[in-house]
């Protein structure tokens, strides 16, 4: 019908269909790896660690056979903003300076900008890889297993894991309800009441109305869920399959540690790019 390409729908919390080595990794391994890499990159955001993590992600994506179609449509505004940022950063100059004939171009600013952009993309890709390859049902049991040592500190990890499992169960239902709420709002004609002078107030009332409807529905859902839990005699088991690492998880973890360790060593010695000296 229309000429423009429709925007792709965002699919949440559903792994890419099929199975692979990456799909079958224990969810706890994936969460640990993401945490480890996250810490590495926030402490040492140099080109070498960023590149090493990008390489890991690329290999994992290939192993998991992630098709290109998973990438969401990037709104044009974002491209424009990126281009604007790159342009101003490039004009900012700074060392190193590239000499093209008679013109000296300072690349320093542009390089900083590119590094920040690359860092953001790598961090987003890392999280996306977990969502694309993990069944949500495996997340909460993995959190319970990972958090077991914290129980010694009297931290209620079991409660957290159960609540996480229930929240993941409620999440798609709430999203559906949001969709209906939004549609119902679209169906309405423009409000004829309300003074035009005070647009902000009208807008605020509208927001509270929407929020009140969403919360009423959520409260009802929570009450019913509470009844369902009571009917089962309270919380207890919440996963039929055991949740613990296997041999391949240790291998994957070793690979990640090796790659990240090497990158860190290089960053700290000969290829450091994230130092704080100007």
């Amino acid at each position, binding site marked *: *019908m229309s000429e423009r390409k*429709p925007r*792709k*729908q*965002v*699919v*949440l919390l559903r792994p890419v269909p099929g199975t692979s080595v990456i799909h079958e990794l224990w969810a706890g391994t994936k969460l640990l790896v993401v945490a480890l890499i*996250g810490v590495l990159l926030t*402490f040492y955001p140099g080109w070498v660690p960023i590149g090493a993590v990008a390489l890991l992600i690329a290999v994992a994506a290939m192993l998991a056979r992630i098709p290109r179609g*998973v990438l969401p449509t990037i*709104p044009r505004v974002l491209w424009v903003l990126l281009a604007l940022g790159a342009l*101003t*950063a490039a*004009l*900012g100059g700074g060392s190193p300076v590239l000499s093209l004939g008679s013109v000296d171009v300072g690349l320093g600013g542009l390089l*900083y900008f590119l*590094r*920040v952009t690359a*860092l953001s993309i790598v961090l987003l890709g890392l*999280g996306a890889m*977990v969502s694309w390859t993990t069944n949500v*049902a495996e*997340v909460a049991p993995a959190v319970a297993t990972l958090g077991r040592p914290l129980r010694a500190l009297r931290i*209620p990890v079991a409660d*957290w894991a159960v*609540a996480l*499992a*229930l*929240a993941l*169960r409620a999440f798609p239902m*709430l999203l559906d*309800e949001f969709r*209906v709420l939004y549609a*119902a709002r679209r*169906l*309405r004609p423009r409000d004829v*009441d309300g003074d035009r002078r005070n647009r902000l107030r009208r807008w605020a009332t509208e927001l*509270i109305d929407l929020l009140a*409807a*969403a*919360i*009423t*529905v*959520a*409260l009802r*859902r*929570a009450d*019913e869920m*509470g*009844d369902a*839990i*009571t*009917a*089962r005699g*309270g919380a207890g088991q*919440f996963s*039929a*399959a055991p949740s613990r690492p296997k041999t391949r998880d240790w291998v994957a973890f070793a690979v990640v540690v090796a790659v990240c360790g090497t990158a860190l060593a290089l960053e700290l010695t000969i290829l450091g790019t*994230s130092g*704080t000296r100007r």
Partner: protein
Amino acid sequence: MTSPGPKSEPRRTGSLRPVELAHAAVMAALCAAIAIIAVVVPFAAGLSLLGTVPMGLLAYRYRLRVLITATVAGGIIAFLIAGMGGLMTVVNCAYIGGLTGIVKRRGRGTTTVVAAALVAGALFGLAIVAALAVLARLRHLIFESVTANVAGVAAILERIPNMQGAAERLTRDFGTVLDYWPVLFFLAGVFSITWVSLVGWWALSKVLARLLGVPDVHKLEPSADTGPVVPVPLQLRDVVFRYPGTDRDALGPLSLDVQPGEHVAVTGPNGSGKTTLMLVLSGREPTSGTVQRPGAVGLGKLGGTAVVLQHPESQVLGTRVADDVVWGLPPGVTIEVDRLLAEVGLDGFSERDTGGLSGGELQRLAVAGALAREPSLLIADEVTSMVDQDGRDAVMSVLSGLTRNHRTSLVHITHYNNEAEAADRTVNLTGRGIADNTADVPMVEKADVHPATAGDDAPRGAPVLELNGVSHEYGLGTPWAQTALRDIDFAVHEGDGVLIHGLNGSGKSTLAWIMAGLLEPASGSCLLDGRPVSDQVGAVAISFQAARLQLMRSHVALEIASTAGFSMYDQAKVTEALRTVGLEPTLASRRIEQLSGGQMRRVVLAGLLARKPRALILDEPLAGLDGASQQGLLQLLVDLRRRERLTVVVISHDFAGLEELCPRILHLENGVLAATPTAAGGMS
């Protein structure tokens, strides 16, 4: 009715109770959803302010431990979808929500909020400064990058005449500010936390005011009795139950015996206390009379009492079928999941996601979860009322086999006469304590399946809605692509009454959304009076299954005026709209939360019809209503169609009683119209 106020019972310690757990989980999901939208959708960051409200509500109603649990759960979900930004948003929402909620619970005012927010903001600012001090390399990278951007802007400014001064000042001032970054970030932290707290406080107060009178639908209480679990044989003698704060008995006086292995059906009109009986059987103390059991009730315990409830979707707790069967079993207990699933006719379902199951399958799964506890007493409360015909038959065959295969007594509460026939014994609740207007409600007989028909009682008018080769696919271009509709061709004529019948997952809701213009079909066209309906959203009215989601304003009059597009001060029009749907004009001043389910549907209809829609689409209009409300609503719709020649399209998985409203039936199966009806008036 209860207010959503702070729970007044003494502060508890220890593990979360079921209600606390459920509220923490649902509010966590809500907050995570808001945070994700705020992070992912460009320019929606302001939405994250709203995320403080669900968290504030939790802090207001429950102890701190519940809020922390919700923060962890919501944070992990937001992290999985939106990364670090999502996680930080949820944590912030919980921080500020917790602050406003606790201030609210203590009954303090805005001054306290400002003071608390200043302190909280200072702590937050210090935390940010400390984090940035530790993450020196990240700080350096970000500062240098932003400096480059500023220098670039300055370089552009320099080329503009008369702007050299500004460019110089920009570079110099920015450099100065960066030199004092700890001060800058500290002040920004204090300012933002204070501001967001005030907005959150305002929103929480407004929402709490709106939530006054939201009914607490939570019913079951965890059994408090100890000792060995032996719920049957059970003897009820002259049992009367009256809910606190009401002035009439909801149940009884009633005497009833349940023997081991017995199948008892309980029938009775709405309001006769069927659900109240379920509560008493599952362990609530009656107001008067005696309940005798050999041991403890053991609700949900091994060998105790199990309950299967009415709503299929909300009693399933696991994301995967096998997880749901074991949910809540004590640690260490192992059961044969596959054998239990086979027994309820769900062989091979164990790895499936529960989200994709139909109502009937979900109810059978709930039965499997109950059987995992080898209960001595199983109570089924209206388990088939929200399930389609095939689902009902399957659930009934599972239930009626139970007492043969297990040492389980079954109490089946139903409002369908023919379902009671399978029982050894039927108890009919007379409903002595109930109000007069609902006393004589006839029991609902299930309608038989009708063949696709094309007969019509009125000559066809001009086509209103035309669907030509409509196909739709969700997630187009992604690996999750899923076809919902294929090559749908049909037309709805002026004054038509069409039933689009299909089971769960047949694509009927997608079709409804397309016909209302809310969804643009992937291919083909849906035309209203010759123009794409998606360009005329609102011209075709649609009433969703969840009526509550469609009622946005606080009061009935406001709601109707807003949906219909006239002024709320126009009382005559509001009254007229209410009268159209058979409601008293006095209802206009009622709060939305005080309406019954049937009244909510009617108020939605009143608003929609007052706008004179070209057609009215009703998605499962009868779901969740009791017999009397169903018949009343149907009669109203039939009258409207006759009198006003209203064009009606009903989307339903059921036929019961719809034949008069919808003489024309279309069957939708797996996204395809099953048999093309040969209409007398001809199809366009």
